[in-house]
């Protein structure tokens, strides 16, 4: 009998029992999110796939959500952790609204709050397994930032998560410029999403594009991109790279 045993509350993360509760690997995951600043605000795109390992198990997962009046949050990685983050933010926005004064949390504030959350979880070796994209407009100021599961955060004119980092950002670096029109912005995002669709195994051809401006948020209905599979390179893939399969 252990007379000196310290009493832990059931939900504490200290002690041996708690190790089985820490996040070790993700289960149901979303793939890339791509976003850019355009003339009137932010455009963000993400497909609606939730993969269970290599199986494309869920095909109607909304990975972009509005936060408060001024922000949009897109997430890749573990879907259940994304849902947890949405609960945290829901509470945050609720308390912000309850003050009922002229002030409200803007995208910059939400981004920094998320950075604190992600970094603190990482420090406890219990990360929220997500890469987040936070975009918004407040008082005419456009804001676009990203936070990773280890708390790395930065702002930029265009951001992407996951495979998007490797496939979408080079395109954006070439073709993004200030004051893109809405149509050009969508076209650019679709170009990135198309490349991801061809090359990312966890991407599905069902996506949503979200827009946020000073007036508010719109998240499009799900739609598909036109694809072309008759490229000669696809027909004879090993031609330029002997030994590949």
């Amino acid at each position, binding site marked *: 009998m252990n007379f000196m045993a310290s009493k832990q509350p059931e939900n504490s993360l200290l002690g041996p029992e708690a190790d089985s509760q820490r996040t070790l690997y993700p289960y149901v995951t979303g793939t890339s999110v791509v976003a850019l600043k355009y003339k009137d605000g932010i455009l963000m795109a993400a497909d609606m796939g939730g993969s269970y390992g290599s199986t494309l198990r869920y095909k109607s997962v909304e990975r972009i959500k509005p936060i408060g009046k001024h922000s949009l949050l897109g997430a890749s990685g573990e879907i259940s952790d994304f849902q947890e983050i949405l609960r945290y933010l829901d509470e945050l926005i609720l308390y912000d609204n309850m003050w009922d004064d002229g*002030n409200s949390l803007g995208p910059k*504030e939400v981004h920094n709050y998320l950075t604190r959350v992600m970094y603190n979880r990482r420090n406890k070796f219990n990360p929220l397994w997500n890469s987040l994209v936070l975009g918004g407009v407040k008082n005419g100021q456009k804001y676009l930032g990203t936070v990773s599961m280890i708390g790395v955060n930065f702002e930029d004119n265009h951001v992407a998560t996951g495979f998007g980092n490797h496939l979408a950002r080079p395109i954006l670096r070439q073709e993004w410029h200030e004051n893109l029109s809405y149509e050009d912005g969508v076209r650019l995002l679709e170009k990135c999403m198309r490349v991801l669709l061809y090359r990312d195994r966890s991407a599905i051809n069902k996506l949503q594009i979200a827009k946020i401006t000073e007036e508010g948020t719109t998240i499009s209905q799900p739609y598909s991109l036109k694809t072309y599979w008759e490229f000669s390179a696809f027909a004879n893939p090993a031609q330029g790279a002997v030994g590949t399969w």
Partner: protein
Amino acid sequence: MFRNQYDTDVTTWSPAGRLFQVEYAMEAVKQGSAAIGLRSKTHIVLGCVNKANSELSSHQKKIFKVDDHIGVAIAGLTADGRVLSRYMRNECINYSFTYESPLPVGRLVVQLADKAQVCTQRSWKRPYGVGLLVAGLDESGAHLYYNCPSGNYFEYQAFAIGSRSQAAKTYLERRFESFTDASRDDLVKDALMAIRETLQGETLKSSVCTIAVVGVGEPFHILDQATVQQMIDAFEIVGEQEGPAAAGQEASAEPEPEQGGAAAGEGVAPMDI
């Protein structure tokens, strides 16, 4: 106020529905040396009278910077004021760290008021004996609030607290309509004039007062003695001419000869009265 059988502790109501201990705490504010605040659309100026206990000691610090966009002037128990300033600084810095954004003044003031209210409802505590004039910039503009030991807070265009603050309030009431669109320098001048009212005849020198400013593009800072003295000198001369015209109230006739005397001491010709 007289002693009565309902004033021993803060958790006792009087039959008239008063909490005497809270009112006594507000008395402590009235006994402290004066502090005034006034605001325009873009700037807020805080000023206070600094009375040193003796010539040998230094002045009490009554104006505190809470953050780049918030400052506070206190009247009453300065120790209590210091503790509350530390609380305010803490809240501001925590908010800044989490949200990378300045804490809205309106929210800080409510938190402060709630903190003061707690002390009016616990038998083992006493109310804070200090009144705070909180000046700060928000998304929604420039604000000046007064926080009371009772846990109440009010927003003001201009206000004065502490001893002889009534004289300053009278001055401010006369002039407040011009504050909204006043320039920063005119606001400081009005603050100095208001402080002069509370001195009731004593010479206004930068060594007896402290002025602090916060505004759009101007983080909260206390003006240094030399600058304040310059501003006093700048309007003191004008003040002499305005003397008979301005303040038809009690303080007018008295300060005039004194100002003449003080001015003479600074190398200006004595007035021919």
